[in-house]
């Protein structure tokens, strides 16, 4: 083997190793967030698991070309949003549709709320109302709503993650909130 070729090979391997090590840290830090966003979007743990894996596999393949134009979080969320879009396009029997037809029989994950005992019932009812409202939102509105109110992302980040214009994101959020307010407004 030529010395120059050997050096090139070693450098390439070292770069791969460094990229893998960096990506290792990315996985550790962002896996829970991506998993959460997908889980809350789909409300199906198995699907959320495999979609999160797919998402990070895609991310790893693109990792060397990631230039840091957006934050890692936004970049990963964009991949997740695309994965979700493909997933719901491919799968007609998804939870949200089932829930929509099942009506009020769905169970909402509100058991972990740390409310004070006196306002416990009211708060849980209101939180359930938000879950119900989110269930009935059109997919794009729900994605925007979850990125804002679960993932705590701002307008610009959501626009970057969804590929929507900032004004469109704002409109989606406003409509989603109106729907939520209508659902929660009944509880006084």
């Amino acid at each position, binding site marked *: 083997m030529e010395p120059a070729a050997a050096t090139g090979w070693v450098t390439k391997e070292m770069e791969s190793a460094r990229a893998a090590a960096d990506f290792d840290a990315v996985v550790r830090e962002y896996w*829970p967030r991506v998993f959460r966003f997908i*889980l809350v979007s789909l409300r199906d743990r198995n699907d959320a698991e495999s979609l999160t894996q797919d998402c990070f596999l895609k991310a790893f393949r693109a990792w060397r070309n990631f230039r840091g134009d957006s934050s890692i979080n936004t970049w990963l969320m964009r991949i997740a949003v695309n994965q979700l879009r493909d997933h719901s396009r491919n799968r007609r029997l998804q939870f949200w549709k089932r829930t929509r037809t099942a009506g009020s029989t769905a169970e909402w994950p509100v058991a*972990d*709320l740390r409310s004070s005992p006196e306002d416990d019932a009211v708060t849980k009812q209101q939180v359930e109302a938000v879950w119900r409202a989110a269930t009935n939102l059109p997919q794009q509105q729900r994605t925007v709503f979850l990125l804002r109110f*679960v993932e705590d992302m701002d307008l610009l980040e959501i626009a970057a993650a969804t590929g929507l214009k900032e004004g469109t994101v704002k409109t989606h959020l*406003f409509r989603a909130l109106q729907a939520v*307010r209508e659902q*929660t407004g009944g509880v006084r």
Partner: protein
Amino acid sequence: MTRHLSDEEISAWVLGERTPMQEAHLAGCRECGIRTGRLQAALSGFRESAIAWAAREQHAVPVPTAPRWWQPRSQWLLAAAALVLMTAVPAYRSYSAHLSAARERTVLDAAEDTALLNQVDTQISRAVPGPMEPLVPLVAWNTDANDTHKGNNETNR
């Protein structure tokens, strides 16, 4: 601004679109405070429940660690195997040469020790020294064993 906030204004408020007039009204209006507070509480409760639920589900499926499934495995295996070969073969050769030299040294040392002890035994086991026998040194260095040893060493060098 004396009128109460409309539903749309409350949604916009929660989204962070606030005018100074609305802020002034909200500071003094209990009813509008309750309405915005209720929506905000419901949203933060929703967030809290989503985070807790995901954490619980996540707990059952921990973040994947080594072996790293996202790494191109074949490339890594090749690299690792090459690295092992590159470092291990010369290291093993040098180690085994070192090992056989050491083993030979140990065998020779043992032979030397045995010869010495035999010599000592012979000297002290002689029951009584003969009269006027000159005191012999217990150990004579120029022995056959030593000669053999040297010879062995030379052949081994």
